């Protein structure tokens, strides 16, 4: 255990965004502390997700962030030689109704217009691309540069890069308060002691409001659990990440199939539990789009907590009323993929520069200041029947 000392910048939260922000700040010569309350980095959503790295199906406002993040994931893999199983095997978003086919066609045109290589495929082309898809799949949008990585190794690798660049990582260190003077944070208080600092980054995901509350703020998102399950390994049946019919399926390097998928109306909360109804949906809908699932067994299921924003897009901005604090949260299930771009953006904001990745559509100001999103979310959410 390191004993605490003062640092120029304190990053709160050791997930993919926090570790990346710390890395890029250290690359610019800043003296950075990364504060993580668990005994390791990446123990929450950053280490519990399915590792998807996807530009396909992205909203126009977040596509630049996804595209920039793919470049950064490639940088971590190719330039820094990160052994985190990052494979660009492609992402297939599929349609099982004529209505979905028309939506995908329009979306392919829109994504291509934004500069993404995405192809609308059907028939024999689709069969050749992904031979084991169900015949009920009518068409798909295929993005060949998309893929997936092993999130557990990825987050540790980025943390290691940050450490090598001089970042001090304080584990088992929980932030308890923020000392303010004249609209600026002067110190971060923790259960291990106090760190005087010049700037603070809040990358605590679904816990971001615990930190925001310490400066009298509240950000518009809700915490919501999501579930995943994995099968026993089987002979190769799938190369790409496929999604449709409210589920996704992707292979692991060990040969398992990972199945997951949340719902927009899932109840909010912090309960990391698995439910029979959700695993039942993985089994039924998963086998509907990808029949080989029927030949194997589920071996593990787990859950993690997402931060859901009102429009399902990340919120990246300066903390209102605080001169020297930036935050990112509300990624709504895409935070692993966009983590590197978001971390780099936060680092640039701390350095007082205009972010190189456009985040105009991801600012806090797009929401009304008096929005009570939690109440609105609770009204429309409901458990599965």
């Amino acid at each position, binding site marked *: 255990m390191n004993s605490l000392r003062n640092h120029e910048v304190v990053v709160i939260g050791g997930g993919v965004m926090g570790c990346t922000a710390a890395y890029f700040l250290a690359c610019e010569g800043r003296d950075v502390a990364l504060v993580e309350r668990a005994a390791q980095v990446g123990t929450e959503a950053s280490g519990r997700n399915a590792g998807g790295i996807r530009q396909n199906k992205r909203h126009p406002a977040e596509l630049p962030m996804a595209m920039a993040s793919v470049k950064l994931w490639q940088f971590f893999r190719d330039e820094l030689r990160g052994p985190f199983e990052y494979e660009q095997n492609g992402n297939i978003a599929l349609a099982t109704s004529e209505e979905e086919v028309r939506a995908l066609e329009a979306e392919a045109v829109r994504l291509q217009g934004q500069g993404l290589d995405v192809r609308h495929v059907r028939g024999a082309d689709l069969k050749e691309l992904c031979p084991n898809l169900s015949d009920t799949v009518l068409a798909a949008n295929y993005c060949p540069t998309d893929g997936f990585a092993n999130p557990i190794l990825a987050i540790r690798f980025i943390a290691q890069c940050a450490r090598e660049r001089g970042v001090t990582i304080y584990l088992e260190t929980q932030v308890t308060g923020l000392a303010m003077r004249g609209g600026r944070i002067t110190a971060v208080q923790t259960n291990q002691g106090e760190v005087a600092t010049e700037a603070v980054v809040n990358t605590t995901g679904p816990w971001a409001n615990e930190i925001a509350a310490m400066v009298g703020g509240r950000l518009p998102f809700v915490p919501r659990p999501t579930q995943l399950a994995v099968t026993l390994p089987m002979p190769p049946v799938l190369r790409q990440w496929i999604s449709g019919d409210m589920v996704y399926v992707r292979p692991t390097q060990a040969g398992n199939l990972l199945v997951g998928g949340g719902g927009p109306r899932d109840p909010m909360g912090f309960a990391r539990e698995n439910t029979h109804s959700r695993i*039942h949906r993985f089994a039924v809908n998963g086998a509907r789009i990808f029949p080989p699932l*029927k030949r194997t*067994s589920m071996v593990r299921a787990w859950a993690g907590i997402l931060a859901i924003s009102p429009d399902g897009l990340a919120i990246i901005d300066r903390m209102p009323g605080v001169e020297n604090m930036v935050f990112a949260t509300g990624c709504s299930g895409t935070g692993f993929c966009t983590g590197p771009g978001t971390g780099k953006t936060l680092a640039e904001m701390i350095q007082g520069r205009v972010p190189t990745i456009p985040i105009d559509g991801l600012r806090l100001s797009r929401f009304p200041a008096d929005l009570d999103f939690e109440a609105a979310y609770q009204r429309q959410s409901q458990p599965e029947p």
Partner: protein
Amino acid sequence: MGGVTLCRCELVTDEDIKAAIDRWNVHSMNEVKLITRAGKGACQGRCCFSLVRALVAYVLGVDPGTLLPPRVRLPVRPVPVVLFGRPGTTTGDTISMIAPLQDSSRERRT
């Protein structure tokens, strides 16, 4: 890769585990499972747990008794996907009654 196979489901050797502890700064059995895949296979660690724990304790220089077992995940034993596809096979909806006992934020190194 050489070494003696400890986890027969995932074909993980003692060399793999020593290398992972060295490469990734590992301090717990849960991390060994997450990184090496030892205990992630069909038996979910029932066969290899004692062997792996003995090795990890030896490498870390700690008493094996101080190492918590990795998190237990539902469904504990492999369950055919088609069985999960049948409706009404459990009485209540929440099935993870074991996992909350080992919350990661409460995980401690020693």
